[in-house]
């Protein structure tokens, strides 16, 4: 499923930053780049992109005003770009999918794209996409979910039980399994591992963090719409806003 993307920013270098990052995602097709709100309006009406990256502060019409002029039917999924926080929270009033702060964080960028894919799949009524929604609605504890992992320490191979894992951290091509204060390196990237884990027991809270649901003791909202989790062992973990809904759903569900 390709996604047709429009990039709106008055600075050419900022637009390049977006299009270059998008070029590493095969399913993202940039259909246009424009430098102001007026041009964005006509590009959206003419080409009906699926997703628009929209700078908030632009000469003339701001990104927020531009989107507000469109009817809900015409309005594409929107990811706002802003250099400074104060506009970001207001962006949600015009139905933003997400917002990104400049300088752009690659992980946040990828998270926002994941989110956009999920939302587009929902919009097109196709749930078979192996996105977050599908992951959440998958049957619990299927036979496919590994109950233990083999990790190498020196010359030895030891086994870590899935139920002993507190949380998992992305470490390049490895996944760091945190067990009782120690870290075991599993030779598997986190995004692959994420699909193999039992969604009833593990939840993704960040592009680079997965946590075991029953280890979560507290959740506190941060001022930037992210949140901070506290595990039973006292470890604080940042949870990205992109995964906030999924996290709340899992936490609200049966333990």
């Amino acid at each position, binding site marked *: 499923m390709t996604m047709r993307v429009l990039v709106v920013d008055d600075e050419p270098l900022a637009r390049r930053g977006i299009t270059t990052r998008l070029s590493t995602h095969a399913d993202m097709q940039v259909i246009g780049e424009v430098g102001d709100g007026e041009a964005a309006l006509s590009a959206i009406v003419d080409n009906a992109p699926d997703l628009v990256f929209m700078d908030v502060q632009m000469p003339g019409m701001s990104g927020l005003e531009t989107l507000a002029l469109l009817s809900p039917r015409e309005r594409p999924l929107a990811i706002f770009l802003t250099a400074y926080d104060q506009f970001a929270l207001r962006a949600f009033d015009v139905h933003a999918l997400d917002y990104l702060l400049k300088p752009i964080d690659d992980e946040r960028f990828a998270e926002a794209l994941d989110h956009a894919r999920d939302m587009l799949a929902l919009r097109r009524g196709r749930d078979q996409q192996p996105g977050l929604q599908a992951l959440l609605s998958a049957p619990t504890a299927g036979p496919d979910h590994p109950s233990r992992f083999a990790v190498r320490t020196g010359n030895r191979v030891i086994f870590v039980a899935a139920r002993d894992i507190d949380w998992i951290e992305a470490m390049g091509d490895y996944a760091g399994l945190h067990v009782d204060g120690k870290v075991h390196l599993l030779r598997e990237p986190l995004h692959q591992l994420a699909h193999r884990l039992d969604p009833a027991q593990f939840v993704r809270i960040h592009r680079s963090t997965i946590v075991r649901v029953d280890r979560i003791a507290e959740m*506190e*909202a941060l001022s930037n719409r992210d949140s901070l989790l506290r595990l039973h062992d006292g470890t604080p973990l940042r949870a990205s806003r992109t995964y906030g809904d999924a996290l709340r759903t899992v936490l609200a569900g049966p333990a």
Partner: protein
Amino acid sequence: MPIATARRLPPLWLTLLVGWTPVLLGTVVAALTVLGQTNQLLNHALFLLAFTLGSIPLGVVQRRLWRRGTSWRRSVGVLLAFSLGLAFVSTTVVIWVATRIGSIPGKFQWRFVFGSMDVVWFVLIAFCAIYMVIGYYVSMQEERLRALAAAALARDAELRALRYQLHPHFLFNTLNAISTLVVEQRTHDATRMIARLGDFLRATLDGDGAHEVSLADELSLTEHYLDIEKARLGERLTISMQIGPDTLRAAVPYLLLQPLVENAIRHGIAPRREGGHLEIQVTHAGERLHLNLRNDGLGVPEKLSRGAPDSSSVGLRNVRERLERLYEHNHAFELTFAEDGCCQVLIDLPFRRMAVQAAKPPARLT
């Protein structure tokens, strides 16, 4: 002293009420002694009328003087002369009425007027005095509130001045590290570090102005900082955090941990070839919040061992001063160096929860 222009006034009705009540009571008590003697009662009633007639214009004039901020001396002169005139006029009217209705026998005579106007005059002077007292009380209250507000402003300004200043060393070292990453074409690491630096700058430049944040926000900011340090120091820096139950919403001074963590890394861990470990513990006990930072280090630094301990570290001094301004004596800050070179900072604060944030879920297009 009260400011001359636009002084606040006690309301006129309040002054009249306060001024009238004793006169009214006095008249009633005096009238009780002459119950049954119609003429005497009438005279008391007329006396009350004389006072009332005099007090209203007097109140208006005094109000005007007060509002203009006329000097004491002038006000007293004007009011004495004016009240004398009023006493004369109102007593004349009352005596004239009294002789007409017969409550005072005989014809109207000026000596009656001069014989009784002194009492009216004194009562009017008393009325002026009451007005002054109330006026000064009100303006004193005003002054006190203003002084309190000024003190709060001064404290705010002090705290603002103490706002943590980004260490130039840290900024340029980070830029240098990023430049290295770019040269090595490790673009992903470079953008990641730039993003973290952006987060960190955004937080330290934030014009929100609050002096306290929730511990959750403070920890998140500290982690942004630690992400950068981890990228710079690699495996030489290990960190463990133990955050106790029911502490995430606790109010802590904005940027409390970051300068302490920076200090621990700069002076303790970074200079050690083998690196070191940083430990942060936060616990909530009764009405207190305890923060405990511990790091491996080189022992008491040269500079610190001379002179008073900790006097040379800007970051530490900044934290201490802010704690002092925010909590006065209701806090503790302790810095100790162990034999093995470990450095420990203990902070004890009053436990208070931040107001709940409006955590409404983001609106979405579906």
